[in-house]
């Protein structure tokens, strides 16, 4: 019951936030020099078409009505048309979104599977060779993470693993040129190829995903790594851990309970990073030519194609808010103090 009430209240906050996002994306295009209808149709469109669209967008009416028209269109799933591809932006985003989501998911999985354990190990006070090694690694990684630009790291990985070693495919997209994309179920090629039972394409999809995902994990895993390490260190130093040691609880229990305490801050940072990534990983997509929505937005900016930008910004902001919502709900579940404070 409390949980439901909390979710309800949290969703209530979301509504004005979504309105704000739509207002900002709406004004974003109004800030551009020139006529929005002309911008949407591109410089080559005939004047009559522009006139028609201007009427459709109610650009001849006062601003509030224009905004309401914009909202109405959004609610119908109409994000405008790209004049470069002359295609529906909503459709374009929908087709490309899985590539971006697959990249983010794979990157975050690497962070969770590789970096978080290393961070946890390096925080523990034991003196074994494993702890020492992980402490070395974490020191070096702490220095590098956040300093290396993702687009450059991607290039270096391509140079080393494709040009020199030949272990990985080049930046040709999500599949080799001759591979046929699998039938769309989830949109994640790695999953869909497995569902279709096409093992060769699965390997191809996985190897094409490897380098971008590693780049993403290395560059954006930094904050998560540092937060996991420092909050685990803090938890291990805290009174309750010393007390638990003093009670002679098994080492496993002591560590597990300390991890419970390290979790909330780590979850928050993971959420912030994940929320950032949809709009933040655009350069990785560009370097590896993954053709996700980030690359779509970058291309649109270089061709001054504003409807896709507006659509992308909206989607990315909403995605971020959704991730924050998810994080809040997760915190509510794992930390009893949050639920106590919420009422």
């Amino acid at each position, binding site marked *: 019951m409390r949980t439901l009430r909390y979710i309800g209240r949290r969703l209530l906050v979301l509504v004005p936030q979504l309105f704000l996002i739509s207002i900002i994306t709406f004004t974003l295009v109004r800030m551009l020099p020139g006529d929005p209808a002309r911008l949407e149709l591109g410089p080559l469109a005939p004047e009559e078409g522009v006139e028609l669209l201007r009427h459709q967008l109610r650009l001849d009416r006062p601003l509030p009505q224009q905004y309401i028209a914009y909202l109405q269109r959004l609610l119908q799933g109409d994000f405008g048309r790209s004049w470069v591809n002359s295609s529906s932006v909503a459709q374009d985003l929908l087709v490309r979104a899985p590539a971006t989501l697959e990249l983010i998911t794979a990157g975050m999985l690497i962070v969770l599977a590789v970096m978080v354990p290393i961070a946890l190990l390096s925080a523990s006070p034991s003196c074994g060779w494993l702890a020492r090694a992980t402490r070395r690694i974490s020191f070096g990684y702490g220095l590098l993470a956040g*300093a*290396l630009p993702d687009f*450059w790291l991607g290039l270096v990985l*391509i140079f080393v693993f494709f040009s020199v070693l030949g272990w990985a495919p080049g930046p040709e997209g999500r599949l080799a040129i001759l591979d046929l994309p699998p039938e769309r179920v989830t949109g994640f090629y790695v999953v869909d190829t497995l569902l279709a039972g096409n093992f060769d394409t699965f390997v191809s999809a996985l190897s094409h995903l490897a380098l971008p995902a590693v780049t993403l994990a290395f560059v954006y895993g930094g904050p998560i790594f540092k937060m996991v390490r420092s909050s685990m260190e803090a938890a291990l130093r*805290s009174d309750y851990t010393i007390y638990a040691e003093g009670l*002679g609880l*098994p080492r496993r229990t002591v560590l597990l309970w300390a991890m*419970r305490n390290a979790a909330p801050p780590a979850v928050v940072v993971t959420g912030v990073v994940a929320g950032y990534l949809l709009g933040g990983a655009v350069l990785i997509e*560009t370097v590896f030519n993954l053709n996700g929505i*980030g690359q779509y937005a970058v291309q649109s900016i270089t061709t001054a194609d504003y409807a896709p930008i507006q659509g992308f910004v909206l989607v990315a902001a909403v995605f971020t808010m959704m991730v924050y919502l998810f994080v809040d709900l997760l915190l509510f579940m794992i930390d009893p103090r949050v639920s106590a404070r919420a009422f």
Partner: protein
Amino acid sequence: MSARKVDDDKRRQHPPARVVRYAAHRRVVGLWSRLSRFDQAVLVVFVVVLATAAIGPFVTPYPPTFADPLQRLVAPNGAHPFGTDENGIDVLSRLIAAPRTDVLIAVIATTLSVAIGAPLGVVAGYFEGADRRAMRWISEGTLRLLDVIQAFPVFILAMVLVAIRGTGPVNVVFAVAFVNFPVFLRLVRSEILSLREHPYAEAAVALGNSELGVGFKHLLPNAWPTVLVQVSVTIGFAVLLTAGLSFVGAGVSPPTPELGSMIASGAKFMIIGQWWVAMFPGLLLGLIVFTFAVMGDIVGKLAEPGQRAIPSRRLLSKDRVAPAAHAEAAAPSAQGAVLSVRGLAIEAVGRPPILDGVSFDLMPGEILGVVGFPGSGKSILVRAIVRLLGDGLQRAGLVLFRGKDLAELDEKALRAIRGYEILPLLPNAKSQLNPLVRVGDLMVAHIRAHDRCSRRKAHARAARMLGAIGIGDAEHWLAAYPHELSGGMAQRVCLAIALVHRPPLIIADEPTAGLDVTVQRQVLDLMIELCHQSGAAQVLATRELGIVAHYCNRVAVLHEGLIVEMGSVRDVLLAPRHAVTRRLIAAADLRAVSAAATTNTSSKIVP
């Protein structure tokens, strides 16, 4: 005389230049020596980066925009140590010239974000703490608005801003500044909120200054150190953002030397094996960002008074000498003692010893009070007995528990004794309980750690134990999280945990600290009564003589790591022989001590 005095005054007002220079020199040397090797190296690199940004374009070996069509894509060699790019421009020359663009844009943009963000942060912080509801709402609204702004994809936002206003360094500055100002707004706001609680802020307001004026005049300067750390980090981030924008062609465009566009122009050659065009700019970019980030740490460390920049790892190293063992370490322990401490010494490297050879015996059922002024080593002593001190401290001497030296035990044997035969009772019980673990889960885990039994049985036993110490509705409290407990209730839970295995020894460190006076009394009465029932001996460290006089059999007075006086409560408190004891008694509530000590007959119980 007077002439000399005038002379003195003069000297005080205008110290000779030599003295000033000397003082400045000493300060710089002092700061430098407080840095670790690593930080010193970073500082040197930082200075080099700044110098390059300042004069880079004038010291390049080749003109950084001079294209030699005959020398295109030359691999690194003697004439071009870093090779040439597709236009035949020397890469090294462009590398030296490029930081100017990136660093300058980043520094100006960050300055701009501070200039916008900091004042708004002061206002937001002021509004948030204001009495008027409407103002608080405005501040709350601003923060939610920032949430939304920060939810927008930073990079695309910057790209859009550049796209709206056209490419070029000025527009990049605006874009980067716009993207970063919320960071400073939030930071300054939270700093102001915490600073305005300080007495000096209240004093300034009481003196008739306006609140907002105080915010700008008194609080903002105190927030600068934190802001400065963030500035350094943000500059690094701004450099990355600038380079990223130029990489996709939305920032500074080619002929101007700039790292991001250099990487972009080298990208296609990287894939076909001509790595040098893009490799070096990226490394330099990484170095710049890294240097600024570490500089932030260094500034933070230096700005915080009393903080030593020397990494604590040095203190943690295992290779060190143990403190000298003391003569009394060899003395035999008394017959039948539960606990015999012999020459226990604890010290951190390079500091005066915390414990300097402490020895005592504890008989079964006996309660030994350990008193002393703050910092005398009471809690260290108590914790050292069960080896709860953590790393970084060296110890010597013996702690014999029923004849076994606890210091020699391995991890597993120690775990078997801790929590089963020796139980800790620590101050501020609420912070001893893991906030994310239910009381019941802790108790069950503790019972099962030492007694093999089913979870159900352990749970029932925990409930019985809570009942035994007078906590009704045990099931409710077992299901509770620590934050739902009052301080007194938490200490009762700890007491229940301490007694559930009927241990022969309880180690208590200020067990009533943080409790209400009336609750203190109840908890102590309960604790002593239960200890008597189960025959547990106790070492009780406290700063309150009243407690010792009332509850203990014997008392040891600790001063600077030494036991200066030890004996029965009556003897020591009514006829103190050591000055420290007298001072402790003088500082305590005399009646509470002497009356209780007079009636204290418990010392006679002990053989």
